[in-house]
């Protein structure tokens, strides 16, 4: 059974290593500051007992006032999982550090978030539109997108 680790425990462990990174936590997820994503991810990947070596899914949700980038991480070695979330409050140019250097599986998923939601990932080797074509107006998955059919 893949145990979903409680947010509180993981938040405490991250807090010991990187004191200001965690902004909030709940039963399943840990909220961190957007500029600390790469450092927290590196810690989660390498820390003994955590060792999250597999990124299951990266996606983003538009909550109108802010964007939330959601990372589902799994550890195949220890068979546990955690949800990592980060909030971007700038609507005009949201930017989050990319985790491709740690997990190559994040490559296409971050490009998809950029294409459909408009959140740019700093450090991504090939950040360009994937599903839609260059010149497509806007970012369709945002809540304020008018689909021009």
């Amino acid at each position, binding site marked *: 059974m893949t145990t979903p680790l409680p947010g509180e425990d993981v938040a405490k462990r991250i807090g010991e290593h990187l004191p200001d990174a965690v902004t909030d936590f709940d039963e399943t997820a840990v909220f961190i500051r957007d500029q600390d994503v790469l450092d927290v991810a590196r810690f989660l990947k390498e820390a003994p007992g955590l060792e999250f070596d597999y990124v*299951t*899914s990266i*996606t983003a949700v538009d909550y109108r006032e802010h964007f939330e980038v959601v990372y589902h991480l799994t550890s195949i070695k220890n068979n546990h999982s955690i*949800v990592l979330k980060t909030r971007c409050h700038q609507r005009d140019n949201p930017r989050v550090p990319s985790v491709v250097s740690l*997990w190559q599986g994040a490559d296409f998923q971050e490009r998809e978030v950029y294409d459909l939601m408009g959140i740019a990932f700093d450090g991504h080797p090939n950040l360009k539109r994937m599903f839609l074509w260059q010149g497509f107006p806007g970012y369709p998955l945002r809540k304020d997108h008018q689909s021009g059919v």
Partner: protein
Amino acid sequence: MFKTEPIMINFGPQHPSTHGVFRMRITFDGERILDLEPVFGYLHRGIEKLGESKTYAQIVPYTDRLDYLASMTNNHAYVLAVEKLAGVKVPERAEYLRVIMAELMRIASHLMTVGFLLNEMGAFMTPLLYMWREREKILDLFEMVCGQRLTYNYMRVGGVSQDIPDEFMPALRRFIDEMPGFIDEYEQLLAENEILLARTKGVGILPPEKAINCSISGPVLRASGVKWDIRRADPYSIYHRFDFEIPTCQNGDAYDRYRMRILEMRQSVRIIEQAMAETPDGEIRTKVPAMLRPPKGEAYGHIEGPKGELGFYLVSDGSPNPYRFHIRAPALINLTMFRDLCIGNLLADALIILGSIDICMGEVDR
């Protein structure tokens, strides 16, 4: 004396071997691949955005059209996610029926994978037509249950939509009795075949650490030696009650990826036999309101589909429509290391690697 230049060839969206509308821009030096750039989006239909304007029950037919070769498992993953979100319990009979349908679907999907892989190797239609014969029998079983051959829309939040007719179980029994014989026939014709061995042994070797780092899942991951199957690692539905193995292979080349599918078909037959023997009578669906309003929150439900880990991430704000509907597509993520595997190989090998990863554009592009 001679000067050579690399050349770019466009492996267009319309091509008989690209498993749908998949495009690659390949840079060659002669026949050797120097660089490969996959281009997606030719079947991007905006299912995630469409889902935000439909009710939870109306999204089930859209999930059929994702990986259209494995519609039952897509339905299963989605209804699992909604049931997790809304806290709905499923009756026993429905769980058994779901498992039978999902495993039959797995067999049908793997038959197609092997058939099309062999198509690309040059055995023009013969193995494909042999495997299509079995797939037609499975499609007949599905038609008996829900009336459709390709996009079933069979599972519902809280159960399944219809009970099986009386002639289903005897027909399933006949199919299960003869299926191992057919798998033996395929093994006999294919496993020691010289051309198959020459074209797939040592092609596209994927080491296990790279596979985990690239978020690969499904038979491709197990062919590299990593024993990770969601049905065992994080059991959903009633899979913990069945006795089946998780086969793995050592080398991680295209031959092992092909062999995995044959081995998994045998395990699926085992699961169906056990499920058939134990299916209880009873209700097939828990009563759930048509305009289901799950409590505010989110859920991630995932299953082991024939192509890998298919997951649905749903965020609910209390209204009948999901606030966010995201699909974790295994076929897209399994393509992450496609470029790295192909560089240095010949063009013909690139097609074999693509066929052994097994993509379905409906899922890659959504």
